[in-house]
């Protein structure tokens, strides 16, 4: 088995009296595609928010593999975690709506690039050169996802499916090691979901990154995941390959059962 790039140890968070995530210990390996499923309110998105730093845990810890050493990222704010290679998309789309598609991607590249404020102020030739290079990079990323034709459209004017796709491209533009996808198929029609399934597989192969996926669409999640965690009431109920999960009696009772 390849090495783990992300681990949590007994991660918990309480809001008021409610324990939304309760002693969750999970791990994701290099270039692995991990699915995270569970009924509504099981704490999946809360877990994502703990991993990406939007919430701070009440107890437990989050550790990532940064090169050769393990780094405890418990206290890091989201932007520092992103700089360490954690990227995500959101359940409710969060694009920079007043910006164009290519600008959305360029913004995602800001943190990794050295700023060139002085050149920008003076509009030196090197400023234009760097801008052109960055735009080229952004466009080539968009090209992989077939979005160059809409590069100069406002993000707000894209159709829904394209907006979701752009969020993924934007996350990838931060050159992450781990990509968290929060219900990427939500609101998509079957054709769009099919295309998304291919896309996720393609990303895993082409970018060689770890992907953690929350998804309610069982066809999608079973098709792409190598390993699944099932969450219920903030706890890990089971883990295993899609086949194991599908045959796990506890899971069937708790989760698949209710779907019929």
């Amino acid at each position, binding site marked *: 088995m390849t090495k783990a790039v992300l681990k949590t140890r007994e991660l918990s968070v309480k809001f008021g009296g409610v324990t939304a995530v309760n002693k969750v210990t999970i791990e994701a390996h290099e270039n692995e595609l991990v699915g995270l499923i569970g009924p509504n309110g099981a704490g999946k998105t809360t877990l994502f928010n703990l991993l*990406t730093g*939007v919430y701070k845990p009440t107890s437990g810890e989050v550790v990532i593999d940064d090169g050769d050493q393990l780094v405890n990222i418990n206290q890091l*704010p*989201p*932007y*520092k975690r*992103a*700089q360490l290679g954690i*990227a*995500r998309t*959101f359940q409710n789309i*969060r*694009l*920079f*709506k*007043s*910006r164009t598609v290519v*600008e959305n991607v*360029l*913004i*995602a*590249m*800001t*943190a*990794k*690039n050295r*700023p*060139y*404020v002085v050149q*920008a*102020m*003076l*509009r030196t*030739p090197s*400023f*234009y050169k760097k801008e052109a290079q*960055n735009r080229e990079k952004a466009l080539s990323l968009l090209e992989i996802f077939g979005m160059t034709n809409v590069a*100069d*459209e*406002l993000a*707000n*004017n894209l159709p829904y499916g394209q907006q979701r796709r752009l969020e993924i491209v*934007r*996350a990838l*533009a*931060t050159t992450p090691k781990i990509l968290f996808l929060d219900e990427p198929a939500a609101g998509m029609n079957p054709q769009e979901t099919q295309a998304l399934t291919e896309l996720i597989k393609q990303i895993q192969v082409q970018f060689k990154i770890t992907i953690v996926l929350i998804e309610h669409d069982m066809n999608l999640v079973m098709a792409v995941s190598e390993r699944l965690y099932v969450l219920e009431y903030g706890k890990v109920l089971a883990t295993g390959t899609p086949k194991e999960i599908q045959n796990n009696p506890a899971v069937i009772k708790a989760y698949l059962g209710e779907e019929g």
Partner: protein
Amino acid sequence: MDKAHIKYTLSWATLTLMIIILIFVMTMFGIIGPYGMTTIVLIGINLIAAVGLNLVIGMSGQFSLGHAGFMAIGAYATALIVTSVPTIFGFIISLFVGAILSGIVALIVGIPTLRLRGDYLAIATLGVSEIIRILIMNFKITRGPAGIFAIPAFVNWQVVFGLGVLSIIIVVNLVRSPTGRAIIAVRDNEIAAESLGINTTKYKVIAFVLGAILAAIAGGLRASFIQSVSPQDFTFMQSITILIIVVLGGIGSISGTVLTAVALGILDVVLQNFGSLRMVVYAVVLIIVMLFRPQGLLGRSEFSLKKMLFDSGGDHDKGRSKDA
């Protein structure tokens, strides 16, 4: 720099030059008298302050009501330095000192308060501005409520025009750079920006500090032009005056700010004819403009020479004004 960029830059430069020549010619033929000159200078000073505030409110989306405080810092820096070193050199130094001081205060204030959202930030910045004013009113060195008189004059319209153009260039160049993109990203969606590795506080502070620096320069110019400063010049109403320019022009539109600063300056001249009804008419105009153009003159879009001169139709920027 490719050909297109040279072309646009040259056309803006030409427009600027034409305005300069126009003012010169009009002064020569006596169309612009001393009163007109005062109006032009005051328009320029408001413009510099408003461009700075638009960076804070429009670009970074932080609602600040404290611009007057930063103008006061610049004004008093100039007043104090120029009265003891009454040379052009002293004046230039005083603008730098005011700008740096104002920037430092903005940095100290901004780091903790820019976490606050919306109206809470507005009231906190208002508070900071009032605290600055009250300190000025009570310090010996700033000569209390009476203020400082007989400040040597080093400001003419050329100086203000030059600095006005410079501040527009600085802000526009910043906005259209990676830094500016990050600032706008934080405005559009703070949580998303942070998830992409953008240090949101840092970019809010950059905009806030630059805004404060421009306010201080405007304040310094004003002090030397009017030749007196007093704490009464920098009340909450001064912040509001600048805010109105920004909102009427269109929040986030620098060209809107420029056009509105000029329009309001001219309106002020026209309103002189109304005597004591002046402010009443101004208030009515303000309400009516807002009722009929709530997104401001230009919304979020920019006046573009490129579109006017070089494009034939195909106006894909139109969508931008809608959501402003």
